[in-house]
């Protein structure tokens, strides 16, 4: 279980610290995207699509579409931020910037690099979710959405846990795609369908998708956010997030390590 212990070792934190330092150099590149993205998405899905949908049923009662979408946006941002950071960000650091190789010449080992990338994806996702939460507070104050925002910060740790699992998934693709052009395959075959078919932007009632979503941590995250912010079951979905994310990490981190050992170290 040394692969697991590496998550808590100082080298993994040093790798996260390095990424954080790079990220925070420019406030406008650090904070504008997560602040603008929910506005764009809410305008496109909420005001645009919502104009046709008006309202839908959630837990047996009608909910405005904008209000339905807002919690899904938090789950979607968690997923997309973690996946894209561990997919494109990590691939660029591994292949083009050779940051990993530089780190590996120090006391940092590959298990720390991998955990550093996973944890960084989770930290960044949680930061994005926190910023989007502030945007939601502003939209709530403007009367555009009607959410119960009291418990929102309490759900940020769930975003962090889920993002760890998503980060491990992104790194798996990073480990196997031959070139950056091949990233389109996992993005269009897995990431986008998963992002959209997890009850993030619209409810899904097809029995196959409903069954698949039972083992989909993103679905449980979206439902947990929705339950907390609109009113509905939360605990079961949070357990789903934690359990499925732990399973993803237990399967994917050792696999990522094995694949990346071959790819990066040639071993």
């Amino acid at each position, binding site marked *: 279980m040394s692969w697991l212990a590496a998550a808590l070792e100082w080298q993994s934190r040093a790798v996260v610290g390095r990424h954080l330092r790079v990220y925070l150099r420019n406030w406008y590149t650090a904070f504008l995207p997560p602040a603008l993205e929910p506005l764009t998405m809410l305008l496109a899905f909420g005001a645009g699509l919502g104009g046709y949908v008006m309202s839908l049923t959630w837990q047996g009662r009608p909910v405005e579409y904008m209000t339905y979408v807002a919690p899904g946006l938090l789950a979607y941002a968690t997923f997309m931020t973690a996946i894209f950071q561990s997919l494109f960000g990590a691939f660029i650091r591994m292949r083009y910037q050779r940051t990993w190789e*530089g*780190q590996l010449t120090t006391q940092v080992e590959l298990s720390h690099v991998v955990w550093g990338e996973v944890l960084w994806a989770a930290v960044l996702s949680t930061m994005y979710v926190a910023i989007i939460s502030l945007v939601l507070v502003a939209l709530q104050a403007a009367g555009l959405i009607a959410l119960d925002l009291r418990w929102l910060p309490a759900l940020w740790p769930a975003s962090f846990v889920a993002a760890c699992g998503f980060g491990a998934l992104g790194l798996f693709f990073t480990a196997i795609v031959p070139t950056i052009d091949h990233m389109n395959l996992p993005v269009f075959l897995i990431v986008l369908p998963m992002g959209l078919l997890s009850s993030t932007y619209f409810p899904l009632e097809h029995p196959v998708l409903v069954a698949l979503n039972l083992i989909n941590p993103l679905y449980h995250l979206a439902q947990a956010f929705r339950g907390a912010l609109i009113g509905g079951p939360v605990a079961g979905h949070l357990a789903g997030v934690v359990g499925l994310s732990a399973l993803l990490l237990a399967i994917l981190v050792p696999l990522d390590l094995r694949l990346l050992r071959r790819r990066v170290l*040639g*071993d």
Partner: protein
Amino acid sequence: MPALLDARSLVKHLGGRRVVDGVDLACESAQVVGLLGPNGAGKTTTLRMLYGFLRPDAGSIHVNGVELGRDLVRAKRAIGVCTQDDTFDGDFTVEQNLSIAARYFRPRPTDLGRRVAELLERFDLAGYAREKPETLSGGYRRRLMIARALVHRPRLLFLDEPTTGLDPQARMGVWDLVDGLRAEGLGIILTTHYMDEAERLSDALTVLARGRVVARGTAKTVLGDLVGEHVIVVDAGPGAAVAAWLTARGRGEPASVLGAWHVPVSGEELAEFARAFPTLRYEVRGPTLDDLFLKLSLAP
């Protein structure tokens, strides 16, 4: 006192092939050991095992008395690595590259600010401290790579082809730095394809071929053992008689460079050659490590 580096019976298979086959290597303080060999000899794989990138299939590596396989992190505290390719962090300035690298070591170097300033000064990088590494010339990039490898004050430094692609002036600059580091007591493992560099910098050479150590010692000893005392350079054009002379002594066709044969011979063979070809025009010179590489490349 144990050697800074003591590697014994290293074996490594890659892709089902035995790439390193029983290699021993040692390095003391204030010593530069040149690790040489033609392409595919197993140098890079050996080096990557020595600094902890690859795990040997068999054998042991001790760095500063710590076995790499048992406590890699502790062993790596004593190691500095300058890889062949630039692996500095392009997201940071020259100065930040040094301070960021220090954060990857525990215990962290004390007085880090002073250490970074000292390295910038020593490696003539102070004027570029706030520049991004990619704006530097090749020579200064190498300086940054070596400076970064030294930020945590290691005792053993690995330099993997540190002057490849540099102009002569920059190469000599790196040589001076290596000389200075040796004088301060660092043990250095150096790989290079430049024979003058290996001869000039190394206190001892270890020569690899097909994954095995084929010679070790000073440059002179290694050359004498593997190449010969002299090298006859003769035009290969009308060389049928010379070929016959070599065949009679059980020697195959010698290395050919730009239409000339380079024939390694002992002192006795040189005298016999002179008697056999009194009218032939040829040159006699001392052996170089280039001859060694040619010989090893031609070996079956």
